[in-house]
C-alpha cells in the first residue's frame, strides 16, 4: 500500500510541476491543484498507514497498548482540502475574469502597462 501511494504521489508531483511550467493559465491552475493533492497524500502517507485500528479505547484500559491509526494527519488533510477548495474556487473566477479581459490564455500576455485611474 505504501509503495502504491508513493508512486501515485510521485506521479501527482511530477504532473503538477510539468503543468506549472507551461505558459497556459488553466494548466498553471491544474498544476497547482495536482501539487496540492500530492501534498495531502504525502501527509497521509507520512502519518503512517495503519489498517483496522481506530484510535478508540476500551473503557477497561487507560493507555493505548497497540499501534493505532493516527487521527491528526486526517485532520490536517481535511483542513488543507477545505482551504484549497476556497482558494481554487477564487482562482477559477479570477482566471475567468482575466480571460474575459485579456482574451488570451497565455501567461506572457499579462503585461498591460499601468493605466491611470481615479483611485489612489
Amino acid at each position, binding site marked *: 500500500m505504501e509503495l502504491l501511494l508513493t508512486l501515485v504521489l510521485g506521479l501527482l508531483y511530477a504532473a503538477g510541476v510539468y503543468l506549472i511550467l507551461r505558459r497556459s493559465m488553466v494548466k498553471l491552475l491544474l498544476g497547482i491543484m495536482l501539487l*496540492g493533492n500530492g501534498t495531502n497524500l504525502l501527509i497521509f502517507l507520512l*502519518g503512517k498507514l495503519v489498517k483496522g485500528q481506530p484510535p478508540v479505547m476500551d473503557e477497561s484500559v487507560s493507555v493505548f497498548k497497540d499501534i493505532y491509526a493516527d487521527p491528526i494527519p486526517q485532520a*490536517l488533510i481535511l483542513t488543507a482540502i477545505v482551504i484549497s477548495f476556497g482558494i481554487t474556487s477564487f482562482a477559477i473566477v479570477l482566471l475567468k475574469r*482575466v480571460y474575459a479581459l*485579456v482574451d488570451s490564455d497565455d501567461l506572457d500576455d499579462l503585461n498591460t502597462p*499601468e493605466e491611470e485611474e481615479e*483611485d*489612489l
Partner: protein
Amino acid sequence: MIDNNILAPVFIHLFTAIIQLICWRKTVTQRVLSIGGSVLGLLVAIRLFNRVDQSGILTMNAANWDAPFGIVFVADTLSTTLVLLTSIVAVAVSMFSTVGISKKRMLYGYFPIFHFLILGLIGAFLTGDIFNLYVFFEVIIISSFVLMTLGGRKAQLEGGVKYMAMNILASTFFLTGIGIVYGLTGTLNMADLAIKIQAVDNQTLVGLTSCFFIIGFGIKSAVFPLYYWLPSSYHTPPSAVAATFGGLLTKVGIYAMLRIFSLIFIPDDFMQSLLMVMAVFTIITGSLGALIKNNIRRLFSYLIVCHIGFLVGGIAMFSTVALTGVIFYLIHDIMVKTNMFLIAGLIRQLKGTLEMNRLGGLYKEYPKISLLIAVVLFSLVGIPPLSGFWPKIFLFQEAFSQEQYIFALTLIIGSFVTLYVIAKMWARVFWRDQEEERTVNSSFDSLQPYRKVLLVLPILMLATVTLFIGLNAEYVLKIASKIAAQLIDTEPYIKAVLGNR
C-alpha cells in the same frame, strides 16, 4: 504563564470584520467601525506588549488541551512587538483608506477583508503551532488575493494572477514541509519540535526538509530568485492596499523564517551560506531594479526587495549581534515601507500621477507636506540620527567580525543605491520646477478639510513613530537585543510552552 487574553487583538479585528459584514453597503458605518476597531486593537496590543515586557512569555492553550497536543498560542517579545507594529499600521491604513479607497471598492467589502488580513497577520505572529501558522498564512493570502483584485482593473487582475500563483505555490511548499516534519517527529507544536527534531536519526532528511521551508518563506518574503511576483504585482492595487502589503506581508515571511530557523532548524554552515548567497543577490537585483524604474510605486516595490536582502543576510549570520540588527531593521522597515506607499498615494492625490518625469514642483506648492515626506525618506536612507541608520551598524559590525566581506560590500551598495534613487526622486518630484503647464489634476485641493486631515494624519503618525525609533534608539535597541537573545537561547520559550516536562 497562562493568559487567555493574548488572543484579544485577533478577536477585536474578527468582530470588527463581522460587524462590518452585517453593515454591508453602509460605507460610512464601515469607515467609522474600521478606525474604531483598529484603535481598539492598538490599545490592546500596547497592553499586551507591556505585559509581556514585564512578566515574560505568556501562553494560551486552545480549549485547554495541554501543550504538545492542543494548539498553543505564545506571546513572546518578538510576537508582541510585531503585533504592536501591525496594529499601528492597521490604524494608519484604515484612516488613510477612508479617503484613499473609492466608494466602489468599499461597497464590495474592502474594509471587512482588510480586517481579516490584519487578523491573519496577528494570528500568525501569535501562534505556537506550525500547522496553525499555515492556516493563518492561508487567511492572509486569501484576504490579500481579494484586496489585490478588488476593483477589477485589467492591470490589477493580471498582477493578481502572478501574485496568486506564486503564493499558492509557497503555501504548498510550506505544507509539504509540515507533512515531512510531522512524519519525522509526530508533533506540530513548535517548542516540542525544537526538542524532538534533534532526536531524529536521519539529520540529512531534516536538512532537506528545511529547504521546503526556505522556499516557502522565501517566496512569501520575496528573496532572490523567488521575488519576481512582487514587482509585477505590488504597483497595481490602490496605495492603501499596497501599503499594507509592502509593510507587512513580506515581513511575515521574515518572521516565519526567524521563528522556524531559530527554534527548529538551527542554521548549519550550508544553510548559512545558502541564505547569504540569497541575501547578496536579493540586494543586488533589488537595487538594480530600483535604479531604472520611473514609476514611484514600482521603485518602492524594488526597494522592498532590496531591503529584504538586508534582513535575510542578518539571519544568515545568525548571531546575537546580527539578529539584533535584523530585529531593529524589521521594526524600522515595517513603519517606513508602509509610510512610503501611503506617501505614494498622497502624491497621486496631489498630482494625479506617479510617473517621475511628469511630476515636479511639489516642494513649492506644498512645503509642509514635503518636509514631512522628507523625514520619512531620510529615515529610509538611514541618515545618522534617524531609524534606518542604527540597525546597519550592527549588520556591518557582524559582517566584519564574521569576515563576510561580500555581504558588507553589498550592504554598502544597497544603501548607496537607496540613497541615489531617493535623492533622484526628491530632486525630480519635489525640487524640480514643473517643466511645462501640464494638465495637473490635483484632487487634493478640492477635498473637504477633514478628508485632507485623514490623508495626512496617518503619514504624520507613522513618521512620528519612525522618528521615535530613530531618536529613542536606545529603548528600541534594548527590545531588539532582548528578542535576539531569546532567538539564540530558546530555552525560555520551550519552557514557557511545555512547562517543565
